[in-house]
Every structure is written in C-alpha cells, then in structure tokens.
C-alpha cells in the first residue's frame, strides 16, 4: 500500500461510550467502524455526502444545545457527544421511513430488490407499524428503459440521488438527472438520449431500492436463492474485485466489491455483464477431433488427448510453439509453462498476441506504481490507450484522483480520449510520431509543450504507459517510461490490457521470461529453476510474430492455441491464417470456436471464468484470488488437469494434479511469488490482494528502460488502430446484454484530410492497407491529428484490415474491392 500519514485521532462520545476516531471522519463512518450502524439511504462511502434522505439523523450536543443533524455529512470533532438512539432520533427515523413509504408502491413480492432492500430492511428495523396514508399514491409509468441495459421504475425511487451523483461525480457522464421539483421530482434521461454509459450498471447496484434494475438480472432470481463468491474481474488487467452470484448453477449477477486498492467497488458494464458468455450455447462442451473429411467431430477425452500426445510427441520439442494463456489463472499459466518447458521442451512461448510490449518491461519496470498512488499524485501522465475503452475501472480511479484528489492530468494520445475533459493538458500526435513528442518533451529549451513540461516539474508524477493503438511501435512505451522515470518522484504503471497477462508473464509465458520474473538469460536464475525442473533451454524463444513466421516457413510444426485468436489479433490476418494452415498440427484449448481455431486438428474445451480457482496478477503486480462457483459446461475441464493428463501420456510428470499443489510449486520456484499462498489471499487484511515485488525483496527482474532511439515513422495517413470496450471479441458477442452495444464500424478522418480527399461525412469509403481492404462509413473527427486515420480495432469488419502502419482512404476503389472479394473466395475454397 502507498504510505499515508496516520490520521489524527480524536475522542468522542458515541451513545455514552468514549471512542477514538480519526479527526474529520463523518459520524456515520466513524460509528460504523465502531460497530454502530446508523441507517441511511443516500450516503455512499465513495461519493460526497449530500444529506438528503435525512435517514441518518442523530443528536449532537453543541454549545447551543442538542441539535438534530445528519450523521452522513457531520464530521466528528474533539469531545463531540453523539446520540444515535435517543427518543427524538428514533421518532425522527420512524418519521422518515413513513414519509418514504407513503408514495412507495410496496410491490416487494415482485421487486428484484425484495429480500436485499435497505428500505424493506429498515422498515422492519426502524419503521412504524402500518401506513396512515390514505390518499392515492404518486403514479408514474411503470418501468421505462433508460438504456438497452437499465430500467427505471420511478414509483419505487426514493430520490436518494445515488445514481445521478454516480453519473456526474464518479463516471462523469451525467445522462440521468432529477427532473421536476418537490413531490414531482423523478429521475430520467433526456428524450432520445439514452443512459448510454459504460458504467450504468453501478447505478443499479447502488440503488437502495428496486427503482433501477438491469435487464440481465430482472426476475432471474430472489436474493435468498443466491449463492455468492468473491473473485476478480477478467475483463481487463486492473484486477477489479467482484462478487459472482449464482442461482441454480447459473451466474445471474455480478456486483462490484469495494476494494480500496483497485476498483472502489465500481465496475464497467462489461465487467458486470460479460458473465453471460459463459452460459452461451456456443460454449465448447466436448473435445473435438477433425476427421479425415476435414470436419470436427465430438470425441472422448481419451481419444482427443491421445491424438494430441501423438502429434506433439512426433516432432522435436523446439518445433512446437504455444500462443496464449493470458486469460487463465496464474496456476494454469504456470502449468502451461512447465508443460512446455519440461514435457514438450520448447522455449517458443508467448502469452501476448497482437499487442505485445516487451515482457521484461511489463514485468519489471521499476519503480512501478500502484493504483492507489494515483490518489497522492501531483501529476498524472497517461500515455496509453484510451483508458475508458481499455481499462474502464482504472479510468474511474484516474478520474477520482483528478476530480476529487486534485491531481493534474496530462493525456497523450492520437485522438480524443475519455479523460480529455478533465485533463489539464492534452497532446495529440500523429501515430508514428510519438518519438518526436518524447524528444520535444525531453529537449531543453524546446518551444513546444511548455505548459506540459511545467506541470511535470511537480511531483510525485505517476505515469500510465502503454500502447496507444495497435499500430504503435511497442518500443515507444519503453521510451516514454524512460522519459517518465526521470521526472520528480515518478513511478510508472505499465499497461497491457488482457485479463491476466501480467500473471502469465510472471508465470513464464514469455519467450524471454522464466517463472517469477526471471529472465531466461539470467544464468543464476535459470540454474535455480533447473535445480527443481532439470535442464532447460538457455536461449530465448520466439515471440508470437516469430512463431507465425516459423510456422509459415516450416521451421515450426505444431502449435498450441490457449484461449488465443491470433488471426483476429494479428498484424496481418491472412498471413496468420496461412501460417496456421501450414502447421502440421494445431491444438486449441478454448471455450469457443474462433477465427483461429476453426481449422485446428483438435479442440479441447476448457473451464473459464467462475469455473476455475486460483490467483491472478494485475497491472500493479497485485496477486488476488479468483474463485470457482460452478462447473464448466458438459465435459469441459480445467486447463491444468488437461495438461497434467497430457503430460503423463507423453511420458512426462507435470505434478499439476490440483490448484493448491500448483500454487505451492509456484511459491517454491518463482522468486517473486515465494511468500504467496492462497490462504493469505483468502482471509484477513490481505484479501484485497498483495503486491509482490519489493515486499520481500525477492523480485528478480528490475527493468529500467532506456531511450530506444526510435525515430518517427508515420506515413501520410498513419493508422490509429484503437481498442473499444465493446469490440467484436467472443466474450462480447456471446453476451446478449453487450452484443448490441458494439459500435458500428467506421473510419475516422480529420475534416481537413477528408476535404483534401474530397470525402464527405457519412460516405462509404474503401480503406486499404498492406494487408487488406475494408469498406467503411467515414466519420469526421476533428480530435484526430491531421494525416491520420482512426479505425476501431476488432469490430466485425475492421479486423480484416489487420494493422498496417499506413492506409489509403478513397471513395471507390473498384479494383481493391474486386481483389478483396476474389482473394476471400480463393482462400475460402482452399480451406
């Protein structure tokens, strides 16, 4: 945890008991920490108090006598005397409840919130017996959709303003607001402007009654049927804490869990609703083997594993490669790495697919920031993808640091980002010209970016550094980090997006890394591991790009795809497809069929999110526990058990019989994880996760980037291939709540570029690059740097473009169009 000075303590009297509480804490919080729960509706510990429901009234002794005041917004002061249970307080609280209930429909039996409703609970605990209200209740049209996901029943609403405050204060997209006043007040959107927020689900979670409901959960279950378990979201690598709730072996809801270190309880709607994918009817539920006619046929595990063992056994170890593993737990990743290094005996291992940053940089950049450091930062530099799209909960933490804690924000990106409206400074540059920006920032006396450099003289500086887009040279991030590390009091938070990519790298799923952040090239590190595992290859292996090339050239013969889809994620989709075609044998371990594993020889169904237990590691290096609450579908199995069985069929010994056993072995052989146990993460103060490096002084890798000497490379229309939250990826498309939210594919040009090309807003255009052509609608985007084109990555059609450095955009290219079609046909026929 980042250090904070301990708060000054003051003594107050709470219901006659003297207690010590931090100076300035609100009474409601101070009392709660001491075990005295003061009822409330509008108060939420992660938002500013507004004191409007008036439920938390208490009596406080003042020089002017005893006053009634709201505990949620009254800070404690030395010698304060607080009474939470006096007759006046009790009467007042009964009164508030009665007032809240007079217009409440009392439709608890059909309300999603029934059984977990603070209004219901507090009515039982503090409320009057029966209603004395004989007039007609206030009426509103029954639930009306605020968006594709959220519905609002205004009759149930108690106007606590939690939802509206969340959208304004926390997520910064105030699309729902109070309308009307007094007794007519209600919450609604603007006509024809839906509550299209990436964070809308949080309002449902914090609504203290059943006014806001989420379509995926409506009428799905009653609270008393629910079984819940805490875990970690796998949507991105920020490690948001969640609780997974099931009813009859089906996940029905995910809620955010307030983790001080990571998400403050908030989630993006993707974190919240992506669970639907695990119940998709397209989930793989049985092993599949390609028959002689080329069709995939269901097979028994025995047959399928025999087939894989035979194929892998019939080639040299270093003719085998593996791509993927970033969506798995640390234990699974570790088992996979050990399998590859000791049973197959190959160094060609890469967990990163299309957007690889140097694994040594990601795992070892020093000093590395924690998310919590943002709150103490004077200046935050974000030079990475659009956090709102790639790291939504981290985006909220940056917002918090800037809007609530007073940090100054600098954003560097090729176009507008979700953080721009709170940024003190913004630098927009043409993709490929990042090195020039770094040079200007570094150069003494350079005229440009004076204001930015001024801000950066105030530390502590926290720099969030990653790839701004897929076309960016990955070495730019290292150059940016090298620059940032020279700033006052700076720490860097390296960003790579995929769920457990940091865990995978820590477990050695990288061509240059062994488990525990040990570089392959470290003689002593390798020797240490060899003392447990026996001899290991001493050379670094091939990364994903090298593996694709190796397969195409015939140097590599067999490939494992572990939850990976390199065709979609690759720089050149056609080339990847060709490489997969060229491979003698491809086995895919996955939850779904995808563009890459369609042609695999064997497909093995694996357990996924909520179906496996283990640990994951986030961007900070924080290790957290993920939990299993239900079995995978059909015959699907945990990755480690598949690998364990495969090993014995191949005459090896993986010793990966179960999760705990693997966890023990990780602690034994991976230096950075030496003190890690599941127990530590499950109970007590370390439930929020433990950041491994620097804690026990066992972190091996200390990567200090230096200026990579990169030179600008942009061509005329430099491609910005940025990620969007709701992309065309499997998890989105298999989650009904999210599938419809994918934006329409389009290409974005600066208006001046468009007019230079004589192209108009909304026109259909052909976008062509080195690897393919795609027809897209043109949108004008003045936020782009001139001379660039933005194409959102991985939408249904855009992925075909691959990731060229530059593209051309023209009104009609009949030639390109025809070529593309022909090529597609030919390929189809060949497959």
């Amino acid at each position, binding site marked *: 945890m980042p250090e904070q000075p301990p708060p000054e303590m003051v003594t107050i009297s709470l219901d006659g008991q003297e207690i010590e509480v931090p100076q300035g804490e609100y009474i409601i919080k101070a009392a709660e920490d001491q075990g005295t729960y003061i009822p409330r509706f509008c108060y939420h510990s992660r938002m500013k108090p507004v004191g409007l429901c*008036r439920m938390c009234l208490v009596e406080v002794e003042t020089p002017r006598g005893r006053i009634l005041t709201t505990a949620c917004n009254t800070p404690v002061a030395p010698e304060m005397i607080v009474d939470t249970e006096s007759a006046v307080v009790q009467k007042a609280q009964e009164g508030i409840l009665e*007032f809240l209930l007079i217009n409440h429909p009392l439709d608890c039996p059909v309300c999603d919130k029934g059984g977990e409703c603070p209004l219901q609970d507090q009515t039982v605990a503090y409320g009057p017996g029966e209603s004395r209200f004989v007039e007609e209740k206030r009426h509103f049209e029954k639930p009306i959709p605020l968006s594709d996901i959220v519905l609002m029943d205004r009759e149930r609403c108690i106007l606590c303003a939690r939802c509206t405050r969340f959208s304004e204060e926390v997520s910064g997209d105030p699309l729902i607001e109070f309308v009307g006043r007094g007794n007519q007040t209600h919450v609604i959107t603007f006509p024809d402007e839906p509550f299209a927020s990436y964070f809308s689900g949080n309002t449902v979670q914090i609504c203290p009654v059943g006014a806001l409901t989420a379509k995926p959960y409506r009428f799905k279950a009653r609270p008393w049927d629910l079984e819940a378990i805490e875990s970690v979201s796998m949507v991105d690598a920020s490690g948001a804490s969640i609780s997974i709730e099931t009813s009859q072996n089906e996940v029905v809801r995910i809620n955010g869990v307030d983790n001080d270190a990571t998400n403050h309880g908030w989630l993006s709607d993707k974190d919240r609703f992506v669970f639907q994918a695990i119940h998709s009817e397209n989930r793989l539920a049985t092993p599949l083997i390609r028959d002689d006619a080329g069709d995939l046929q269901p097979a028994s595990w025995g047959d399928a594993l025999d087939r894989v063992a035979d194929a892998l056994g019939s080639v040299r170890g270093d003719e085998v490669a593996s791509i993927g593993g970033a969506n798995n737990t640390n234990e699974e990743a570790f088992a996979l790495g050990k399998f590859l290094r000791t049973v197959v005996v190959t160094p060609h291992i890469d967990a990163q697919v299309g957007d690889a940053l140097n694994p040594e940089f990601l795992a070892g950049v020093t000093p590395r920031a924690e998310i919590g450091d943002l709150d103490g930062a004077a200046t935050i530099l974000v030079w990475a993808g659009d956090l709102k799209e790639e790291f939504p909960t981290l985006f909220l933490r940056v917002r918090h640091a800037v809007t609530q804690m007073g940090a100054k924000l600098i954003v560097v990106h090729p176009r507008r980002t979700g953080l721009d409206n709170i940024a003190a400074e913004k630098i927009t540059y043409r993709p490929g010209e990042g090195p020039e920006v770094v040079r200007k920032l570094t150069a003494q006396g350079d005229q440009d970016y004076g204001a930015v450099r001024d801000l950066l003289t105030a530390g502590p500086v926290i720099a969030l550094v990653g790839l701004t887009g897929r076309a960016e040279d990955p070495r730019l991030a290292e150059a940016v980090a090298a620059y940032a590390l020279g700033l006052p009091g700076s720490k860097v938070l390296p960003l790579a997006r995929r769920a457990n990519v940091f865990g995978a790298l820590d477990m050695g799923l990288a061509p240059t890394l062994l488990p525990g952040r040990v570089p392959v090239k470290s003689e002593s590190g390798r020797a240490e591991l060899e003392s447990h595992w026996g001899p290991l290859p001493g050379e670094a292996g091939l990364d994903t790009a090298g593996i694709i090339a190796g397969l195409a050239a015939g140097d590599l013969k067999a490939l494992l795809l572990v939850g990976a889809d390199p065709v979609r994620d690759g720089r050149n989709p056609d080339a990847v497809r060709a490489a997969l075609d060229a491979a003698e044998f491809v086995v895919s371990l996955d939850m779904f069929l995808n563009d890459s594993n369609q042609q695999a020889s064997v497909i093995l169904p694996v357990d996924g999110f909520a179906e496996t237990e283990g640990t994951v590691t986030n961007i900070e290096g924080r290790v957290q526990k993920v939990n299993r609450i239900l079995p995978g579908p059909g015959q699907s199995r945990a990755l480690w058990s598949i690998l364990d069985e495969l090993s014995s069929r191949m005459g090896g010994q993986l010793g990966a019989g179960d999760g705990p056993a693997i966890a023990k072995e990780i602690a034994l052989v991976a230096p950075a994880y030496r003190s890690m146990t599941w127990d530590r993460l499950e109970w007590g103060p370390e439930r929020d996760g433990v950041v491994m490096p620097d804690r026990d002084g066992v972190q091996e890798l200390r990567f200090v980037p230096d200026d990579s000497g990169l030179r600008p490379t942009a061509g005329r229309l430099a491609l910005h291939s940025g990620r969007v939250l709701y992309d065309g990826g499997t998890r989105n498309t298999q989650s009904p709540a999210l599938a419809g939210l994918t934006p329409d594919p389009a290409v974005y040009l600066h208006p001046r570029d468009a007019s230079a090309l004589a192209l108009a807003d909304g026109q259909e255009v052909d976008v062509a690059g080195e690897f393919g052509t795609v027809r897209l609608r043109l949108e004008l985007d003045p936020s782009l740097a001139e001379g660039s084109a933005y194409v959102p990555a991985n939408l249904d059609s855009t992925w075909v473009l691959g990731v060229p450095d530059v593209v051309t955009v023209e009104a009609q290219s009949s030639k390109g169009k025809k070529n593309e079609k022909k090529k597609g046909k030919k390929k189809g026929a060949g497959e």
Partner: protein
Amino acid sequence: MTSFPMILTERMTAHPADSHLLDRYEATGGYETLRQALLSMKPEEIVEQVKAANIQGRGGAAFPAGIKWGFLAPIEPRYLVINGDESEPGTFKDRQLLERDPHQLIEGVVLTSFAIGANHAFIYIRGEYPKPARRVQQAVEAAYAKGYLGQNILGSGFDLDVMVHLGGGAYICGEETALLNSLEGLRGEPRLKPPFPAVEGLYAKPTIVNNVETISNIPWIVANGGDAYAAIGDVDSVGTRLFSLSGHVKKPGNVEVPMGLTWRELIYDIGGGIRDDNELKAWVPGGASAPWFVAEHLDTKVTKDDCAKAGSMLGSGAVIVMDETTNVVAAAHRIVKFFSHESCGQCTPCREGTTWLERILWRLLNRAGRPSDIDLLLDVCDGISPGLAWPPRMTTICPLGPSAVSPITSIMTHFREEVESMIPGLQEVASA
C-alpha cells in the same frame, strides 16, 4: 410614534414620478456618500459602522449584517450577492425598493462591495419581477455611464462589476445557498451548511448574501454613522423597517416604520384597521413561514425578540391580516400548499411531508376528514419539525419544510375547535 427619518422611502415619497432615475437620485444627494467614503474611508471603517448600526438582515433570518461581513474568509475573489428573490407570500417590499429607488440599492452595493473587498456583485431578482429588473438594469447602466460602477470608480482605484440576474420561478431560490446554486446555473437546491457562503459561496468562493432592503440601508448608515442608525427603533431591533401589509386591512401596502411599535399600532393606526370594521381573527406577522398571532398579541412589540418570545418572527416583514370571515383551515391549506409546491424536493420530510399535510387539510376542507386526522396532522408536523417548538427544530436541510408546520400549529393552538368542527365524526361529538 416618535418622529424618525424615512431612511428607505423618503425619495420615492417626495418624488413619485422619477425617484428611480439617476438625475433625481443625484439631485437628492445620491452617490455623495459613496464619493466621500471611497475617498476618505477604509473598508474596515465601513464594516465598523455597519456593525455599530446593528442592522439585522431584512431577508427573514434577521442576522446582524456587520457580523456576517466579519465572517468572510480571507480568500480572493469574493462576491456580493443581493437577494431580490422576494417570494415569501405576503411580501412585496423589495419590489418597491427595486422599482422605485434602484440607485439607493446600487449605492449600497458599491459601498458594501468596497467594504468586503468584492469586485463582482450580482443582483438576483425573481423571474416574476421583470419591471423591477428592468428598472435596476437601467439604473446599473446609468451608474456605469457616470463612473459609479466599473473600473476605478470615482477615481478611487476600486473596481466593481454588477450583473442583474433573473430567476426562473422558484421560491426556494430565496434561500441563500439555493440562490447561489441557481446563479451557478444549477437547480435551486439549498446546500448543506456548513460551509456557509461567507466561507464557500458562489463558485465556492467567499460570498456575502444580503437582502435588497438590508443593502438599501447602507448608504444612510455610512452617511449618518452606525450609532445614528442604532438610535432609531427599539433596544435590540433597530432602524426602520419596511412592512408589507396585505389581506383584510383597510390600507394594504408597504409602510416604513421604526422598529418597536406595537402590532396594534401597525395594523390599526397605520393599516387603517380591518376591512368593513370586521373583527380581527388572526394575522401572519412575518411572511407565510411565521406562526400566526391573534388578538392577544396586539400589544406585543414589533421587534425580533418580542416576537420570538411570543412564538413567532418578523421574518420577511409581511403582515397578512385575516378577519372574522376567514376559514382558517382554508387559509392554512393555502399556505401549506404553497410550501409543498415550492419544496425543492431534496429532503424526504419536506418533499413527502408537506404534500401529505396539504392533502389531509384538503380532506378536512372537503368534509372528508377523520377524527384521527388531528393527531395525524400534528404527528406529520412533528416528523418535519420535532417537538413543534419555536424556533423550530428541523429534520430538513433548510427551514422551508418546517415553515409548512407554522400554519398548522397555529390553527391547532388558536382555532382547534373550528378545525374539529370540520371533521364529521368530531362534529357530532361536539354537538352532542
């Protein structure tokens, strides 16, 4: 009544045709005080004079203006905001000051701004007052043209910009923090206090909010000295005040009188007595928020303390007189309906409670009351204002909610039998 200076209304009485114009204002000594003060006084000296004057705010809360100015946090910039939202039923005194003597207010604004170190002042006028707003706007423009506003006022080096802002139709914007929110382009919802505006006001900067009448007194106080002002009126409540008489009096209208008369003098001598020489039934002494007085209070003095002791307040200076023909339940209903309509809706007890009260009273009026409604009314009131005491304790953020309680406790205290006689069940018991 001893003789007293007409501080606020002398000019408009003597020159009804053009008291609002700059020429007349200057011809009657206007802006001379400002010229003198800017050249010869330090800001602190003005604050001292206003403290010595002991003038209580005329917006309703009667807080001493000089003391409030002393609370200003030492942070720049600071703002002065003039509260011209005047919406308390029965009140129309500020309207007359705005319409008939806007320069008197503007001179007060410049003096006050100079005293508190503000370079930006806003005059917030309720939206339903376009004519007063036009007059003030016209006066502001004339004052700019003559160098009484703007840069380097009268060569003193002091700068002040004044803006006139029109409200949108919401009584609650008279509450000073709601007013500030409204001025910031937000919903006019009162803020939690503390922090008070003097510490965190407009745009979270130190801000003084004063009523139109309060500030209209400032030129006189600065010209004649705080002690001269404090010598007028009663011991604690000093100076003159503008009262708005309405309802069943023979001579409704605004009157400027020194503090400390009796209610009898105000209603009978100055107001001319009750229409048609009917019996007086009750009156509201200080705007719709104030608990009512009845005949037994006629000899109570018109001061802050005397009224407080008698269980009410001078509030906004609105005196609403009801004669014997008045149905007190109907009158109370009308007042409660006002507060229910004007509740901003933030606080549960105010939003729900005022509406509930209004609906119970409506049932009573329509002879659909139940015997239990008497207790229910009082209990709902208790939920908004625990103990039903005066001054009220509140379960709410601002005093609007508890204001709705005043008419109900008033009719229950003074006219309980009449209320009960409207409830069918109780009627029979009473007549049996």
